[in-house]
């Protein structure tokens, strides 16, 4: 692939090495037990892979978003849960602090996050505010040098392990009566921050998904993301964070799709029926061809969106397109892999049923497929097709 330079190939190789030794052997087991992928997090953190796009100044590797996409793709080929853990940690837990935090906040939180000594999380979704994130009901009321927070965040990835959670709360209304939303950072162990129980899920079962409750939780004004000047204007930041996070979820869907083809192709070459390998049957070969073509397309979209971001060019539309397409490819390709592998595809031992269950999340998290279409559609109407 022409986009990739030597350093990307080297990162890919090192990720493949770690995944083969640390991630892949445990993937099926942690899907069953819902155990958090600590071994993987530790190994990846030690190698600097939990802070790939974070500048060296803040303890990261100072590499590009393309490298980070490759990391997530390669992990997702074997374990969606581990890939989601990393994607949420880097893209949602770390990135907003890096992009919008004050210098003091960055120095305070980022080095631990980038080195993997701490895990990050992001709380936007609420029981009654999902796609319509502005419907946030969590409130933060100022009391001297603190805010008193009440409310709940839902489906918070890494929720119980995170040392810091970036979240939104309503801090007032403007003259026109519109909600003013502020972004905060809450640290683990803050009194009034209460973890809900682990959600039982269709897929991504080893990823830590929880409700987070705020019960008169006091947060210092110093934890307003970006400092006091940012009180009441936090919502836009969250939307910008999601633009970048979408590239990661695209990479995740892409990796799952690749993982499905990785398994279906050799299976089809070895499985014999009607006197030959089933890969010689046109009905099967066409499926493999479709999978490979979708994957190729998804990879171009994901890598290109990452490269636009790396080049500081507008990338929101391309990130949505990459996320939309690659997520749907993840589901379609893993579905097809099961079909190609027949009964073997349906049982746990062959892993593609797990990929299929994991893939579905990519069409929901960080903006559903419908929301991506909405973003792309609006951008077309506003800016034209741009070509």
């Amino acid at each position, binding site marked *: 692939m022409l986009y990739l330079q030597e350093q990307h190939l080297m990162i890919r190789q090192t990720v493949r090495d770690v995944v083969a030794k640390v991630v892949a052997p445990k993937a099926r087991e942690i899907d069953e037990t819902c155990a958090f992928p600590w071994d993987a997090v530790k190994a990846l953190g030690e*190698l600097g892979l939990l802070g790939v796009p974070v500048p060296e100044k803040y303890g990261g590797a100072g590499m590009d978003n393309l490298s980070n996409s490759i990391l997530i793709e390669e992990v997702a080929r074997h374990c969606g849960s581990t890939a989601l853990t990393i994607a949420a940690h880097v893209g949602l837990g770390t990135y907003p602090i890096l992009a919008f935090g004050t210098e003091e906040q960055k120095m305070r939180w980022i080095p631990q996050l980038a080195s993997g000594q701490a895990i990050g999380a992001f709380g936007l979704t609420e029981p009654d505010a999902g796609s319509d994130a502005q419907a946030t009901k969590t409130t933060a009321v100022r009391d001297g040098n603190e805010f008193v927070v009440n409310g709940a965040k839902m489906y918070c990835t890494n929720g119980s392990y995170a040392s810091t959670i970036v979240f939104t709360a309503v801090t007032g209304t403007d003259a026109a009566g519109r909600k003013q939303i502020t972004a905060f950072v809450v640290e683990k162990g803050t009194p009034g921050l209460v973890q809900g129980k682990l959600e039982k899920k269709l897929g991504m079962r080893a990823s830590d998904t929880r409700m987070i409750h705020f019960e008169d939780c006091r947060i210092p004004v110093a934890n307003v993301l970006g400092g006091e000047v940012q009180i009441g204007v936090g919502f836009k930041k969250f939307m910008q964070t999601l633009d970048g996070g979408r590239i990661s979820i695209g990479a995740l869907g892409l990796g799952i799709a690749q993982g499905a083809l990785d398994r279906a192709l050799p299976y089809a070459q070895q499985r014999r029926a009607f006197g030959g390998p089933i890969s010689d049957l046109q009905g099967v070969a066409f499926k493999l061809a479709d999978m490979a073509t979708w994957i190729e397309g998804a990879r171009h979209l994901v890598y290109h969106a990452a490269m636009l971001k790396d080049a500081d060019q507008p990338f929101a539309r391309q990130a949505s397109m990459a996320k939309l397409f690659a997520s749907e490819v993840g589901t379609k390709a893993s579905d097809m892999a099961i079909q190609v592998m027949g009964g073997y595809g349906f049982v746990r031992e062959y892993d593609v049923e797990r990929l299929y269950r994991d893939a579905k999340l990519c069409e929901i998290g960080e903006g559903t497929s419908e929301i991506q279409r909405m973003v792309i559609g609006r951008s077309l109407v506003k800016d034209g097709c741009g070509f």
Partner: protein
Amino acid sequence: MHIAVLMKRVPETTARVRPAAGGRSVEVQGGETIISTYDEIALERAIQLREAGVATKLTVVCLGAAEATKEVRKALAMGADEGLLLVDAEPFRDPASAAEVLAGAVKDLGAQLVICGWKALDDDSAVVGGCVAARLGWAYASFATKLDVAGGTATVHREMEGATEVLAVALPAVITVQKGLAEPRFASLKGIMAAKKKPLVEKPAPAASNASALDAYLPPPDRPPGRIVGEGVAAVAELVRVLKEEVHAL
């Protein structure tokens, strides 16, 4: 002390290897190329000795295709200081010839200790390390499962049937390593960034005598068909006889 690690680029063990049409080369399907596993163990131990300050310089030496820069760069990312890739134009080279080239390179580098795998994963010849030692006229110890170096002497453990042999080997020496000596590290992102700035010298492999030429690669013989020796308990005696006398498995 300057350590040279000899490393070979080989196909991954999951790759499917078979004679190419014409039988003059092998075709590798699927899988990637890697640093030969035992060489990577040697490299890991060398990096540890370098980090501990026992060695002051660590150079990896690879004789192979131009594409092997990938493996050499990885060795640099893991922690080697310099890389030397001797690009091999020979379509086939026997182990003695490879050793002649490698020994020449080690001499030019001025290394005092050579560490490498006891064999390469692909051709299994298992003599290159020994031949390098012979060429250099250095001490030699093989199959090391433990290796320490202090004051001009390498201490080498070798596992034998029922005992561990401990050798004191005077440097300069060539040591070949066995599994268990060290667990190769992964290249870290810091290492990968640092590797970009480390010297990797690529030059054509010098001429060397090569007394062997490749005639052909033949496909492995078909496996003999299975045989049913009988049924139930009545077959046990015959089965035991076959295992003992024909297969020599008992």
